[in-house]
């Protein structure tokens, strides 16, 4: 398994993994060990913010796996991210226990407010972390499996597939807005207290969550890389470049697409589960179609079909977003739109693709 993950390693991959290992150690160290008065101290809010970027980066890697390598332009990956986030949020809600405003030992506040007497069955077992962790992976995977099975079997491709992935996330947005769905309606889930027995607000928990985000990003990257560098990855690229030719060679295209789509959805779910405890809230707006489109822009900016580029794009664009929404909030959406147009026109292979071409190496999407 380990050999499978690390085969055909190149400089870019080694560099990326090393960088992630370094920040997973150094950021917590500079946050917890260095005194606040020191110039080298990393403040708590930055740890949480960067942790959020890393969970976005994992979502971007998941999206690049299906879009960059198999040509499936999913405009609904935010749905898998949000479902993973909700699974984590439900665990965190049940950890609040009697410390909620209404002090009900079992029911989360919003259920008491809605006058519910019993816990809905969808919330059973979510007080166990292991069960919640399983759901983080299972729920997005199952949705991807069912959705993908119908879509790929019916040979829905290209822009039509993109449109129905948008509808998927929009439908979930509307559903989760409803109070009677039992997931907190438009307020979503928030006011978390503990995670696996420790305070979610404490600096050490935040630092641990940050480190975990880096670790899962590295793992997600390794899995995605192992997939795309295997013979399986060659078939994916073949499907991306000439789908019907691949069929006539005897490959069951829909099986390949389904497998990679499910793996990607699971990865997006894990990203969502890492995101929620670091931002402290999950609500239906995470299902907004615009979020999924934004994720596509991260991948395009960083470099589609490079994996590393997707992660870098996610961090850079979100860094710019944080900065711009702080200084010129009304310009962010224009900035994002302009960025997408400029990248499409001048950097069609994204930042990493352009750098790879510049330094004489072919982008990873070209090699196989």
């Amino acid at each position, binding site marked *: 398994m380990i050999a499978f993950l690390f085969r055909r390693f190149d400089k870019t991959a080694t560099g990326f993994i090393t960088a992630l290992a370094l920040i997973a150690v150094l950021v917590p160290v500079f946050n917890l060990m260095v005194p606040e008065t020191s110039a080298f101290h990393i403040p708590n809010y930055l740890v949480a913010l960067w942790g959020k970027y890393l969970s976005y980066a994992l979502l971007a890697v998941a999206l690049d796996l299906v879009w960059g390598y198999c040509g499936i332009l999913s405009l609904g990956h935010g749905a898998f991210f949000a479902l993973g986030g909700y699974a984590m949020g439900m665990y965190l809600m049940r950890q609040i226990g009697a410390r909620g405003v209404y002090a009900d030992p079992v029911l989360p506040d919003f259920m008491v407010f809605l006058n519910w007497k019993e816990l809905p069955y969808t919330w059973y077992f979510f007080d166990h972390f292991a069960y919640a962790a399983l759901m983080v992976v299972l729920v997005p995977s199952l949705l991807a499996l069912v959705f993908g099975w119908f879509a790929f079997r019916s040979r829905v491709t290209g822009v039509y597939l993109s449109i129905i992935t948008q509808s998927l996330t929009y439908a979930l947005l509307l559903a989760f807005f409803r109070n009677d769905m039992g997931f907190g309606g438009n307020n979503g889930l928030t006011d978390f207290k503990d995670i696996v027995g420790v305070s979610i607000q404490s600096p050490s928990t935040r630092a641990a969550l940050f480190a975990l985000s880096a670790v899962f990003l590295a793992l997600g990257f390794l899995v995605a890389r192992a997939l795309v560098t295997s013979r399986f990855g060659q078939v994916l690229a*073949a499907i991306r470049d000439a789908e019907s030719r691949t069929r*006539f060679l005897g490959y069951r295209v829909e099986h390949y697409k389904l497998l990679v789509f499910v793996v990607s959805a699971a990865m997006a779910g894990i990203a969502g589960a890492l995101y929620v405890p670091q931002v402290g809230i999950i609500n239906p707006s995470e299902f907004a179609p615009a979020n999924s489109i934004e994720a596509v822009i991260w991948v395009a900016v960083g470099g589609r079909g490079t994996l590393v580029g997707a992660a870098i794009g996610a961090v850079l664009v979100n860094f710019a977003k944080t900065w711009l929404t702080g200084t010129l909030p009304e310009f962010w959406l224009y900035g994002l739109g302009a960025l997408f147009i400029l990248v499409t026109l001048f950097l069609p292979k994204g930042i990493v693709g352009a750098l790879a071409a510049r330094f004489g190496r072919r982008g990873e999407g070209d090699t196989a």
Partner: protein
Amino acid sequence: MNPDLTDSILYLDAVSVSFDGFRALNELSLVVGRGELRAIIGPNGAGKTTMMDVVTGKTRPDKGTVVFDGSTDLTAMDEAAIAALGIGRKFQKPTVFDGQTVEDNLLLALEGPRSAFSSLFGWRSRVAVDQVLDVLAIVRLGDLRAKRAGSLSHGQKQWLEIGMLLAQNPKLLLVDEPVAGMTDAETEETARLLTSIAGDHAVVVVEHDMSFVRALNCKVTCLHEGSVLAEGSIDLVSANDRVIDVYLGR
């Protein structure tokens, strides 16, 4: 039992296909023997490509019988299943995997397991690489082995696609306009190649280039408006008055 059927690699009987009222195939009946080389000619819209679409599972016939290897009904199968039976296809417009190397294109086509899991955990065997080298030698792309397929010339892409067909090692090859855009020398070479393949494999070639068809030196079928107009040797078919009227011209 119908001897035509049992001796055939491909047997089409009374096959009809309509698109929005246009009859692309009209009661088409065609029998290709095992190991036979067959040329199909006919004007545009005669149904040549539709015939290949029906055989390879891309298009479902409205009615009629399509039987492979004397016993397998193809009308209910999809492309992947039909390809797995041993039917390979070369498209009119050369379609190779542009992003991958010549060698990888051939490896993708090489006969062997096709399931997602086998490709995930399988390793390339030494044998596979040898087979690819054999094919590279036959289609004379050995020097371009590590080049990206997208950077090949049109003629080279045609050859690569023929090489992919060989790597697939099918019982029946359907070859749609293999010499379009080729130089005269390349055309001659292709005719020689296809003739040499026939025997081990049945080969059905659709082509407009009459000198190429003549070089194939095989039985010729002329299609017109979705059914067979004439069939026989090239001399017989090209002397047929109706063939001259609708296709060859006076």
